[in-house]
């Protein structure tokens, strides 16, 4: 019972505003959950006709989108999933050692003043839009790397994955994987660096005091500490590479097979690039099919990212 009714009123008003503000904040949080649910829901709804519609038109859409190379959904999405995982996996394979090296260089080899500059450079690499990497890959890298791939296939052609004939121009899986490796390098590097520089200082100094060389110190005290972080960083990079569209779309000459011959032309295509390439010309049934493949991609990246988070969470606990 306040003496001044006026004060009670302002107090009540403040309380009301307080409650509204809290509701807004909670609502925003819930909206994020809803947004993700909506993504799944709308994708499923739009992809529905690809599974339930009239069987004839379904098959027709698959045949027309795959150029007659597949007649069932699994037959259509299978090579695409294979191509996506192949290219992203190769990109990770190429990017991983380099980004580990850069992270170690920034954290343990470069002088401190230089290392902040280097981190900025890596961030810049991350900032360049993917369409520009695509343009660069298609117009600069492809003409310049054809010779190298040819050399590789002449000297290492006895290994099946390098066997010729080399695609000319080199719009092959190998070139795309190289460009994707450049694109995922920054994310792997920055996450790895953040983990590695947290390695316990005392253990490093103990290792050095026992006479370990710098590399031995890193191998004994830094890398074991950062192992789970490094793994989850590469998973994040893999997730990026799986979903990358433009660079693949602009560089790769698409194919539709389960081939591991990286240097040959027209062997594989990724889900994301396939959607972007065929979307403009697809009819309603075709769009449903493409959205269904997008859903498959969504699930794959979801699993990869979820695993990455699980690994970091476990390491943090």
């Amino acid at each position: 019972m306040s003496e001044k009714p006026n004060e009670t009123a302002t107090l009540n008003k403040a309380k009301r505003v307080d409650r509204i503000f809290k509701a807004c904040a909670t609502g925003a949080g819930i909206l994020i959950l809803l947004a993700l649910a909506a993504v799944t829901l709308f994708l499923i709804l739009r992809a529905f006709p690809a599974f339930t519609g009239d069987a004839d038109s379904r098959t027709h859409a698959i045949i027309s989108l795959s150029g007659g190379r597949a007649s069932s959904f699994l037959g259509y999405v299978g090579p695409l999933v294979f191509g996506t995982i192949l290219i992203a996996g190769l990109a990770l394979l190429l990017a991983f050692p380099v980004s580990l090296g850069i992270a170690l260089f920034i954290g343990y080899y470069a002088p401190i003043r230089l290392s902040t500059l280097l981190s900025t450079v890596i961030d810049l690499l991350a900032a360049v839009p993917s369409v520009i990497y695509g343009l660069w890959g298609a117009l600069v890298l492809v003409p310049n790397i054809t010779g190298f791939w040819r050399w590789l296939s002449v000297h290492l052609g006895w290994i099946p994955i390098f066997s010729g004939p080399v695609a000319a121009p080199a719009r092959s899986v190998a070139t795309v994987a190289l460009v994707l490796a450049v694109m995922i390098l920054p994310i792997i590097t920055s996450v790895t660096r953040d983990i590695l520089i947290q390695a316990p200082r005392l253990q490093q100094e103990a290792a050095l005091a026992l006479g370990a060389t710098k590399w031995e110190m890193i191998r004994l005290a830094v890398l074991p500490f950062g192992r789970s972080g490094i793994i989850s960083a590469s998973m994040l990079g893999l997730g990026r590479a799986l979903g990358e569209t433009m660079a693949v779309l602009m560089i790769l000459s698409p194919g539709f097979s389960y081939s591991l011959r990286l240097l040959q032309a027209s062997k594989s295509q990724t889900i994301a690039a396939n959607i972007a390439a065929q979307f403009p010309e697809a009819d309603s049934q075709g769009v449903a099919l493409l959205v269904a493949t997008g859903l498959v991609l969504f699930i794959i990246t979801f699993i990869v990212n979820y695993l990455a988070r699980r690994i970091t969470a476990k390491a943090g606990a």
Partner: protein
Amino acid sequence: MASRTDRGPVIDFDRFRPTRSSIRARKRKDRLMTVLIGLSFLVALIPLVSVLWVSLSKGVQRLTPDFLTHNMSGVVGGNPTPTGGYGGILHAVIGTLEITFGSMVISIPVGVMSAVYLVEYAHGGRLAKAISLMVDVMSGIPSIVAGLFAFSMFALVVGPGTVNGLAGSVALSLLMLPTVVKTSEDMLAVVPNDLREAAYALGVTKQRTITSIVLRTALPGIVSGTILAVARVIGETAPLLIASGFIATTNPNLFSGRMTTLPVFVYNEYSQGLAVCGPGADPGCLTDIHMQRAWAAALVLILIVLLLNLLGRLVSRIFAVGRTR
């Protein structure tokens, strides 16, 4: 009983003395790894320098005032337009600005408020954990899937085949949201608890404490994080290709009609290949005009992205909390 030290084992310490060759091998390995690690950095620099240099050298060629002030309407093949240019990116710049602005309007309030919820209200509850997990998951959504989502949503809610700027904004906001939430969350978490407690002790309500003290203190960090998020989505191509389409003329209306953005313009020019300059063509006809336009637009895009990055870094450096005081 004799003490242990009396008959302690005689250790042949020389046995553990490293041989010269093993020391040398270890040193060699150390040096090899140093070289490899240094080399890996140089390897990473090659593409960066090459990308920047090529876009600069090839982009400058076509980057004229005419290019920046005209759209692509009335441009035929490789022929010059009556104004003396070869078409331009005005419509794409307008489209990029509008669509990006639209995505900011959607994602910044939602993102900042969710961060407020996570830091100020939730205190690690079950809902908060779910939200954090979903934000992480969201940051991994492939951009093309975001585009498909926006397209599907507008197709089902508005009508089939709806392609407009707003759909692009929705797609981009989905990609931007995780970054905004993450950085805001980090920035709110470093606001000292003393400030909150001081405000509560003075009888300030929670809402006012948050808006005028916590958010105020965290503002530079949030702004800089948001700018970096914008820099990330401004270069997105795939979702806009699907959700916003492509058009040669300027479309100032975010809510209806197709809308070109800079990255989509770059892709579209690239995908056209060589222009046809037949026997009856204008003497100024250029067969590689598409690539020239693509590089020039790419240069503009890179400049925008780099400027935004610089701005974001400057904001966080100049207004950083607790560094100068």
